[in-house]
């Protein structure tokens, strides 16, 4: 059955989140709210050194503190497989003989309460022998830099290189991973360019700053290990924990409830093994709740240096591009190899190029390990590429929007050989934001300028999601997927998809909490894959559940299944309708207790494209370099909006993260120590930072591969903001800032050097 848009009753409705009341009333339970009988509280002692050998650890005084039950150090890892990492397993559960960044977990202990645990940690003595810190990419690549890793890497299961590329692990000292990408014959095209623009950009290290810190509760019982965690990848973590602790996978059970934000920071293994290790040693349930400051020192977004060169023809045709990117991966691999591959293969952006070559290197430094972050590399690409598109347009004397339109990839065309064809039309979004920001035009005001940026991010590549739908005798439905509810409104969207298929009201659909023992598998709440991939699985599972019910009903009623329908929770036969429970009762002994459908969806390299368009207007004070963002107009395209309001909220929230990144976000170091990796010192956007005009246009072009034509939306809205604002500054005062964040002193320096020139 194919439903046309005008026949849909649940899909396309902006209903409030199905969990909205629970969240507003304080009834919603998060992992940090879990407590159980006999539960101990764990705290971690973090390294105060950037790079040092651990000479000794004395825990005797801590052990003597009343109420301390268990203490673990790197020595407790001997019997385990103690390293983790998404592709390259190089990160120890606790430091083993050596620390590689300030903040690295060295000792952990469990006590009867957190206050006791904190006091006991103060009694632990660690003797270090300092080694040379490598605080920056330049430090790490210096000829005399010491190697951060001297033993062999713990690589495993590296994925095949994406199309048009190859990679090398550890090609040279302190380089974790190198990725080369090439399409077309660049050497042939460079001589044919009429204009070539070459620039260096920097991208600051960011914090996810999700409000619920990493937390887990672990306990061992007769069945094995049970963990409640707010990690967004319960099934991946189940495998990791089973491997690390040498347990059968089926003996490890994860529960995931509401998660208080993530933005990538809660993907893949983090501090969870420490909680499990303590629970194992203490033989009691252990709660390991990091503070937000600790979470901010657990993982971050990659800082980067980007060298970008683009060549175009005199009439503004994009011809050839070359990018060299150095990513600051921090001390451990985490998701860096995967991020490097995404960055390296995305520099064509939303435009047609004859040739693109990129080289990406992930450099190890003695800093916070960088991992997944909303956009997964596309933010780095878009910052440099969309800044440069603007510069080229200005050099050519072409309107920046016209220059982009001239080179946009068309709907249905692959951006590069082997890529997924573009499933959106790019002019519509650019036209929408351009029309809105310009309004009625009017005279140009001194110090004011407008800038644009466009991005496309691939979503849900190489994902697998299973789903189950059960129709209960009450006529209501229970649905289950492994997508974590992290704020993206997956429970609401899945409810609407199931309700649509089953002819139910949203109130008649309930979403099961994730329990790896019963919930269908999901490859992780990643890459905006939830609605597109799991949504398909839920839709198919709902159809199967309905078929199972109708087959049963046809048997009971003695009619053909084709004569029956399922509407508003009842089986309809002509003018008669039957409650499901009545049919079950009429069947008598051996009747099913529910009607279940299960389905699975597996995707290839790129499943859909998430575009984003931004128009920004700024006013710059040329005396100080201070500027105000007056207008920020964004557009998102979601194929079909399952819930338009929730889609807009995703785009808006991402945009304001991008605004914070543009204006002030950066984890800075003072020497070897993070200067502001704590909530009070790391500035994020607050309500007063919103531009006075802040609008989001939601487009539904209907080409998404997900249920009812949907696609993901979560990771696009932040990508375009920094470049659009930098382009607006350029439009306003004629200078280019190529470093993030766009601090007033950077703008002023650009203005002053422009005057001198």
């Amino acid at each position, binding site marked *: 059955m194919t439903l046309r848009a005008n026949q849909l009753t649940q899909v396309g409705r902006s209903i409030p989140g199905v969990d909205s009341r*629970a969240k507003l*009333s304080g009834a919603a339970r998060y992992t940090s709210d879990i407590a159980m009988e006999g539960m101990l509280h764990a705290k971690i002692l973090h390294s105060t050194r950037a790079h040092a050998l651990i000479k000794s650890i004395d825990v005797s005084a801590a052990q003597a503190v009343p109420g301390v039950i268990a203490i673990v150090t790197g020595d407790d890892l001997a019997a385990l497989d103690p390293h983790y990492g998404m592709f390259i397993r190089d990160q120890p559960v606790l430091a083993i003989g050596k620390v590689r960044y300030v903040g690295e977990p060295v000792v952990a202990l469990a006590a009867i309460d957190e206050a006791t645990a904190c006091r006991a940690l103060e009694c632990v003595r660690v003797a270090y022998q300092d080694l040379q810190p490598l605080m920056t990419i330049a430090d790490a690549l210096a000829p005399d830099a010491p190697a951060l890793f001297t033993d062999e890497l713990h690589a495993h299961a590296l994925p095949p290189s994406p199309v048009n590329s190859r990679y090398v692990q550890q090609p040279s000292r302190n380089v974790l991973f190198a990725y080369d990408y090439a399409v077309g014959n660049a050497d042939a095209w460079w001589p044919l360019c009429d204009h070539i623009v070459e620039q260096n950009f920097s991208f600051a290290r960011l914090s996810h700053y999700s409000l619920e810190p990493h937390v887990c509760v672990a306990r061992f019982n007769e069945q094995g290990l049970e963990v409640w965690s707010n990690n967004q990848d319960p099934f991946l973590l189940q495998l990791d924990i089973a491997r690390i602790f040498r347990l059968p996978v089926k003996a490890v059970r994860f529960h995931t409830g509401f*998660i208080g934000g993530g933005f990538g920071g809660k993907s893949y293994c983090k501090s969870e093994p420490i909680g499990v290790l303590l629970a194992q040693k203490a033989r009691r349930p252990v709660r390991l709740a990091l503070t937000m400051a600790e979470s901010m020192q657990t993982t971050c977004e990659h800082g980067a240096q980007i060298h970008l060169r683009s060549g175009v023809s005199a009439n503004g045709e994009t011809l050839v591009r070359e990018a060299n990117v150095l990513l600051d991966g921090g001390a451990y691999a985490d998701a860096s190899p995967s991020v490097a591959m995404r960055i390296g293969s995305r520099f064509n952006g939303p435009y047609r190029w004859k040739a693109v070559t990129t080289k990406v290197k992930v450099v190890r430094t003695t800093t916070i390990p960088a991992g997944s972050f909303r956009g997964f590399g596309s933010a780095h690409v878009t910052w440099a590429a969309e800044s440069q598109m603007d510069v080229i347009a200005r050099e050519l004397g072409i309107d920046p929007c016209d220059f982009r339109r001239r080179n946009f990839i068309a709907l249905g065309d692959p951006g590069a050989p082997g890529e997924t064809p573009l499933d959106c039309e790019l002019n519509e979004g650019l036209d929408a934001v351009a029309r809105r920001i310009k309004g009625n035009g009017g005279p140009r005001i001194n110090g004011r300028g407008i800038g644009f940026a466009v991005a496309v991010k691939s979503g849900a590549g190489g994902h697998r999601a299973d789903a189950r739908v059960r129709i209960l005798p009450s006529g209501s439905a229970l649905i289950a997927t492994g997508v974590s509810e992290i704020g993206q409104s997956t429970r609401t969207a899945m409810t609407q998809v199931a309700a649509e298929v089953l002819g139910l009201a949203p109130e008649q659909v309930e979403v099961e909490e994730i329990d790896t023992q019963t919930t269908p598998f999901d490859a992780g709440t990643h890459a905006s894959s939830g609605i597109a991939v799991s949504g398909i699985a839920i839709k198919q599972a709902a159809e199967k559940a309905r078929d199972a019910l109708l087959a049963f009903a046809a048997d009971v009623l003695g009619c053909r299944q084709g004569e029956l329908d399922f509407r508003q929770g009842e089986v309809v036969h002509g003018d008669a309708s039957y409650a499901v429970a009545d049919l079950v009762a009429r069947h008598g002994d051996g009747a099913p207790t529910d009607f279940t459908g299960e389905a699975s969806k597996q995707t290839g390299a790129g499943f859909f494209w998430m575009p984003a368009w931004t128009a920004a207007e700024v006013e710059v004070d040329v005396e100080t370099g201070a500027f105000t963002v007056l207008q920020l107009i964004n557009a998102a395209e979601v194929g079909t909006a399952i819930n338009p309001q929730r889609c807009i909220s995703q785009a808006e929230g991402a945009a*304001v993260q991008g605004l914070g990144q543009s204006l002030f976000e950066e984890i800075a170091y003072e020497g070897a120590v993070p200067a502001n990796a704590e909530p009070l010192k790391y500035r994020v956007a607050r309500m007063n930072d919103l531009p006075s005009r802040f609008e989001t246009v939601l487009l539904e072009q209907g080409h998404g591969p997900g249920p009812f034509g949907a696609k993901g939306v979560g990771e696009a809205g932040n990508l375009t903001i920094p470049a659009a604002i930098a382009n607006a500054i350029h439009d306003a005062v004629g200078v280019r800032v190529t470093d993030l964040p766009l601090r007033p002193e950077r703008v002023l320096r650009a203005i002053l050097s422009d005057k001198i020139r």
Partner: protein
Amino acid sequence: MSETISVSMMVNGERRDAEVPVALMLADFLRDNLRLLGTKVACDQGACGACTVLVDGLPTTSCLTFAFVAEGRDVTTVEGVTAADAVWDAVQQALHEHGAPQCGFCMPGLVMLSKGLSMQPASAEAAGWLNANICRCSGYEVIRRALAPWIATRGIPA
């Protein structure tokens, strides 16, 4: 930590007496002692406002307030706003209808800040209150729209 102090306060209209460590924070007293888990602790530094409760009607970051500070006072948590005759507060209803919650972790604090704001007479001091709480998910626009009636009457620039 062995030093304790007895406290007595009204929490959501109910008298609560307890002997607590001197250094116990109000947020921990509410969450751990009274199991009122609606109040969230996020930044634990007074930066984000997720732990906001009302003390004598004024929004207060409970993660930075000692429990004994609330001695003899009226404390209202999100449970207190919600539970009163099961009446869903107008502020909660507005945030609900506009679809404000995403991850939801900041919402109890935001509800309490907004509730406190809605009970204040208009004043210059109240202006900017909404700047006190951080929501990392929503981008604030939906909150700004939901709370527009209160923002307008308090003279807060929208």
